[in-house]
């Protein structure tokens, strides 16, 4: 399949001769916004548990799903990208509803895979010592302990009430509504907020 693709759409870097036309075409392609809809795109699950895409005359064995507005609008403007390190954009889904029901589910699965983030429901304890904060919280996945740096970007506010926490390994947690927590819990977060 790999070979197939290269014949159809030659990669510039491997060109034998410098081709101005191809270059122009590429830069135009880069500048265009391509929308994927139920008509021009067909998503499917692969045998190995990943997501494949067929669009136009091209097939992708595995694609990546990137949200462009992961916090404010996770169901719109979803960027579908190639699976390799460069992750070139294949197209954008303007609204997830443009796709068929089962395809929507496939995309959502991939989104969950990529943007996994436990939600903090309860703050049991936060202790700060020596530049580290040791958290003990209840998430929607259960009781959880983790460590963050003090200060810096460990706790960032996404809006007036919404906060995101990143621990020292890069795991992320979310507090969707600060005021859903009790006064006592909020007091424990005073150091960060």
């Amino acid at each position, binding site marked *: 399949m790999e070979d197939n693709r290269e014949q159809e759409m030659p990669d*510039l*870097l491997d*060109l*034998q*001769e*410098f081709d101005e036309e191809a*270059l122009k075409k590429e830069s135009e392609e880069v500048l265009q916004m391509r929308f994927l809809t139920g008509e021009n795109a067909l998503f499917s699950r*692969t*045998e*190995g*548990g*990943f997501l494949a895409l067929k669009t136009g005359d091209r097939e992708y*064995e*595995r694609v990546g799903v990137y949200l462009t507005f992961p916090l404010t609008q996770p169901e719109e403007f979803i960027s579908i990208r190639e699976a390799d*390190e*460069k992750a070139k954009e294949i197209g954008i889904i303007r609204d997830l509803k443009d796709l068929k029901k089962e395809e929507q589910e496939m995309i959502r699965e991939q989104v*969950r*895979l*990529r*943007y*996994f*983030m436990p939600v903090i429901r309860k703050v049991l304890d936060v*202790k700060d*010592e*020596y*530049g*580290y904060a*040791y958290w003990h919280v209840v*998430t929607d*996945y*259960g*009781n*959880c*302990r*983790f*460590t*963050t*740096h003090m*200060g*810096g970007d460990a706790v960032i506010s996404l809006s007036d009430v919404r906060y995101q926490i*990143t*621990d*020292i*390994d*890069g*795991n*992320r947690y979310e507090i969707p509504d600060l005021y859903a927590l009790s006064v006592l819990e909020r*007091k424990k977060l*005073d150091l960060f907020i």
Partner: protein
Amino acid sequence: MKLPSGLVKCLERQGVEEKGIIFAAMGDLDEEFRFADTVVALTNKKLIIAKYPYREKKEIHLGGYNSWSLEEKETGEPAVLLYDLERVEQLEVLRQVSTGVLMGKIDGTERYLCQFSNTKMEAFMRLNRLLEKIKKKEEITGEDLDVKRGKECCPKCGMIYPDQERKVCPKCMDKKSILLRVVGYFKPYKLKLFVMVCCYIATAGLNLVWPYLSGTVLYDKVLAGNEEFLAMLHLPAGRFAVALAALVVVMVLTKILMQAVGILQGVLTAQIASEVIAKLKSQVFESMGRLSISFFTKRQTGGLMTRVSDDADEVSSFFIDGIPYFFINVGTILATCTIMFLLNPLLALGSVVLMPILFFISYRMLPRLWHYFGKRHRANRKLNGQMNENFTGARVVKAFGQEEQEMTRFTRNNTRVRDAELDVARFDCQFSTLYYLVEDLLTFLVWAVGSALIICGTNMELGLLITFSGYVGQLKWPLEFMSRIFRWYTNAMNSAQRMFEIIDAVPEVKEVPEPVRPERLKGDIELKHVTFGYEPNKPILKDVSFRVKAGEVLGIVGRSGAGKSTLVNLISRLYDTNEGEVLVDGVNVRQYGFRELRKNVAMVSQETYIFAGTVAENIAYARPDASREEIVRAAIQASAHDFICKMPQGYDTILGPANRALSGGEKQRISIARAILADPKILILDEATSAVDTETELAIQKSLEQLEKGRTVLSIAHRLSTLRNATHLIVLDDGRVTEAGTHAELMEKKGTFYKLSQLQTKALAMRGVE
């Protein structure tokens, strides 16, 4: 790692022995994004994936809690999959935003094997590398198996050590030792401290005497005509005027003494405090200088500045004012109460009965008041931040006509400040009203009980009542102090901890105990399989290898973010590699002394930095002993001489934030002159001419060509014309070297370099046409 015995048994049934297992990693998420365990293990022949069924866990341990162990009783049987390694073409970790997915290419199909949180990332990366090694039949060393690197935990409580080098767990550490350590700073001032303590005691004593003189002695002895009192003073009977005069003199003397002691104490405090503060500050600053560059990039500069200045003040003031006053106040309270009870137990009881309430009020309410103060502070900071942003970005705001939107934003922030201010005022009022109300009640109570006692004709007298009210008034301040001292203590200890953290911090990049100190380096550079990233698990450079012989010029090309600047930072050892090594003259850079290495490597980077000082001082930054002639020559070679001459004060012009501002190109030329004067064997030019115009660039190019003679040069540039004279070039893409060779070879290859160079020529030609 120890595998759970259930799994071992299960594997044995399938013909895999435990000792054959080379490495195992544990994934912690299942397909449905629940926390469930999957063990992935490697033997020489097989890849093992053992999935445990999901079960609810008591506690999930993420970031910082590294160890893994399965509780055998609850796990149940895992579902085990075995793959012969011949079938496994490749393992790959697919990075998600905060998790990773292990993908295996098995029998030609890419398969999802398991998912794990970032905490487990390191182990899975290792698993991949091991598989590659097994496939290539390379030897596996202990280092390959060591996942715990850089993440050790306290054996007592399981928290990671904040400082891996020190292996001190803050939770299990003795807090007293911090206190004692700070006390150590005051040791040189023993004598002064002793005098100070005497002053405190004297003050407290005099404070006890004063109400007695102004109350009991004045009213009950002198004014009431107490003959016994005169007899005691050996004065003739009836001479109360003399007694009064004597009393006045004593009272005046007492006041004067109190003031004198106060002054002495103030002077001593100022002396000791400022010396200790200065010492702490310079120690913190000194160790900051020692620390690696990563220390500064990880933390906010503002936060660091607070540490240097505020923390030292906090600690010192607590030790000067807090601790002594604590003892004095405890003493005062005890002594006052004792005296009061001795003088009149009933009245004393009336005086102290409300005191606990007073203490309780301030103990409970003050923290909330501080909370509101903090809120006000943050609101103010936000407002100031916005103003700062707007004034610096005024051009953009105006250009897009967004004054109104900014005004709205300002109003919002301003309202927040106002609300916070109101909160503070409201609560402050509540607090003070309540506090003073109880305080007044207390005074009334003393007067009421006292007056009742006088009327009832017990042995109570007016003077005693006045003395009592004086004592009660004196108790208020120590009580308030006691309610604050706990918080003060915690804050001071926190500050001390923070400072000691810096003072004791071990730099990530360290000199080896006995470094190589060559007089002069030749300038051979070689990178062998270098992998490096600023954050764990996010490599910027991947397996980079190349070699530059002494005297050669290496051009480095690549799009922004490809890792070019990161690469050159490794050579002067601003950072250490994660894997692989950087060799200079065949010796790993880690072996060199910092001074020798950095004297031989000079860098002109895209970020230029001008220190406060004259132009000449800035050029001579690396060699302060340079002569005027050398400075001017360096400036001429960097094409900086002309513009410097045109400045009214020439080379004596003082540069710096408040003084003459230089343009980007001028700054760059000064930093080039700085590098020329440093005369290094290895010169790194990181976009050194990006901010100057084409004409000046040509001039600088020429001087750089001069400069490049006899040196090894690594030159990074976007404009390929800058790299004309490079001996050879490498192209970096996404942290890997994708192309390498001479200019001609790369053009021949018709790869990225060829494409870039064609593009730039075309772009230039097009501009020429217009």
